[in-house]
């Protein structure tokens, strides 16, 4: 069911899941809780209607006019639009290069360290050669962490960009 909503709206992703959820939660809550605790349901009511409004307003034009103008401007490639995109590209590239550099320095330093110092290559930790731990196990968590970090950074950059366009 969720998928359907997800697909139809296409471009605007965020509001749809809330639509599905508020519907699902809302109906039983209003039907059952009204007689026993009318006071309790009141603080919830003001919290929910705005949400609902937002969902309803996701499509109409009133909200998207500034966005639309920004998009058109981006698409027509005014100097302002090009600058904006350039800025985003630079930020993403910088994040990528920084993380790739970090990983390369850590991993790429290992062969050199092993080559230069045969003592280091022969160190044992609790019976296991340190080199095998460094090469056989530890690179994988490192790569995963780098991936997670980039994912966060890149998504933050994109959110910032979207916020900037929409304001």
């Amino acid at each position, binding site marked *: 069911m969720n*998928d*359907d909503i997800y*697909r139809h709206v*296409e*471009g*605007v*992703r*965020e509001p749809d899941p809330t639509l599905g959820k508020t519907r699902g939660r809302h109906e039983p809550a209003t039907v059952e809780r009204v007689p026993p605790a009318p006071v309790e349901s009141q603080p919830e009511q003001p919290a929910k209607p705005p949400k609902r409004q937002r969902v309803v307003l996701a499509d109409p034009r009133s909200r998207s006019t500034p966005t639309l103008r920004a*998009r058109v401007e*981006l*698409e027509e*490639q005014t100097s302002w*639009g*090009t600058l904006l*995109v350039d800025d*985003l*590209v630079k930020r*993403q*590239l910088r*994040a*990528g*290069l920084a*993380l*790739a550099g970090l*990983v390369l320095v850590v*991993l*790429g330093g*290992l*062969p*050199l360290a*092993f*080559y230069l110092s*045969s003592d280091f*290559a*022969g160190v044992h930790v609790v019976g296991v*050669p340190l*080199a*095998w731990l460094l*090469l*056989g*196990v530890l*690179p*994988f*968590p490192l*790569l*995963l962490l*780098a*991936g*997670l970090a*980039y*994912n966060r950074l*890149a*998504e933050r950059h*994109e*959110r910032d*960009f*979207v916020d900037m*366009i929409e304001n």
Partner: protein
Amino acid sequence: MQLNPWALTGIVLVAAMTFYLGHRSSRFASSTHDFLVARRTVRSRRNAAAISGEYLSAASFLGVAGIVLKEGADGLWYPIGFTAGYLALMLFVAAPLRRSGAYTLPDFIEARLGSVALRRCATAFVVVIGILYTVPQLQGAGLALTTVLPVPWWFGALAVTVLVAGNVLAGGMRAITVVQAFQYWLKLFALAVPAFVLCAVFVSGGHSGPAGALGSPAPPTFPADTTVKIETDVGLRVTMVTPVRVRKPGETEDRTVVWAKGATEQVAKGTELRFAAGTSVPVVTEALSANSDWLRPGSTGLSDLLQTYSLILATFLGTMGLPHVLVRFYTNPDGKAARRTAVHVLLLLGLFYLFPTLLGAMSRMYVPELLVTGQTDAAVLRLPQAVLPGVAGQILTGVIMAGAFAAFLSTSSGLLVSVAGVVSTDLFKGKVRDFRWATGIVAVIPAGLALTMRSTDLSLSVGMSFALAASTFSPILVLGIWWRGLTWPGAMTGMIVGGGLVVSALVVNTVSGYTGNWAPWLADQPALITVPTAFAVTVLVSLATRAGRPADVNAVMLRLHAPDPLGFMRDRAVARFGQIENRGRTGKGRHRK
């Protein structure tokens, strides 16, 4: 080798499961959109499992353990590089590439640089890389089947080709997505379970081999009286005085020979060697003989260090140029999902690669005779029986065999889909029927090559296709996505120069392999030279042909980099093939189960 009923059961089960899953999902595949990109509705977790499933090829499943057995600590760079490639892919390529909306790699290149000539050139390289990568899969299938079943080695190659082509013909990308996701978990299971069992046996001491022998600096020794049959001509390096009983091909009686310390013995194909228990193992010339060298990384000098860096470069940048990896990223719904998929892949691969390393290290203790024959790729398959003779070992072998078979199937189907997709959209009109024709044609070529070419070590030939991908496509992808200045003449020259260098290294390497191994290490792993050259040539020629920058570069850059919610992403699928009427049906999402 005698028949192992468990292995046969494992293979038949995997084949049946593959066929069933493929058949079930191919019922819903009808349009080009289904066949090429599974309608771009594959969620990131499922897609990550499918990517890992197709990426963990024979080279990973069998080859990594073999390399570890042979090269020790230095061999560990293969799994690191194979995984790190996805980080590079994620950092520089994944999301923008998906947002380009392309169907195939040549499609992307044409969209970015607007040159049909360049597109043709890219198509040619995709086909070459695809075939170069498929051949070792098929050869591996042959090798694996002969290890556990009494069949000729070409049988495995043909069986895999037929099964894979059947699935791809029926449902294309849509069918194989499910199959590959299933096969990742199967492969993980098939290595993890034997690894745990064998480790438990090893630790508890209920084994027949020498415990803790790796700690001693001497070369490995045979745990029991061992007969080794040499399958190809090898040169053996002898590190200790070794008495051995030799039976040359065609002779009926053994002759006792004592090999001198430090000698290199040439042993012809078909010879049988008998070693007594406790004799030290002579190893093929390219392997490390002493355990102390094997344990310690970087013990063999400067050329080894450079070779390691070359390998790192090839795998780090090569992954992003592999057609079957890229094509899976197009099946994501949007750029954000593509990035998330890559993170998942990093997790899944990291988890998987712990096990081949472990098994490779154990096989150094239990199956050292593989160092004599040089067929180290069979290490994982031989290990269970060596540690646990009897039914338990046979069952474990069966489990591993099932996983290995899954590896051949999933990687070859991924390659077949990607190459057939490229061929059908480029050389034909891109309709479903064209895709099927292309599949047939593309399936026949690697099968023929696998049957006629000499089989080399799996990881090494796969390493060469990584080098080729890194020297041809990675400059275009990275520069095309992040640099406005790229022009099509620049991309073309870079691709041809990089690709040409790797192909010539491949030729030199093959010739030298037939005429006495005189080529330097660079011919074996040329990425250290070819990748920087390709990047430099691409940049320099692009700068020299500044006038050739495509007019719509700003619009394309916007499309590649603008966040998904802004809705700039335009799938070429819709524009080119008019599949928009199919969209209503995606809501059912039957193939996502």
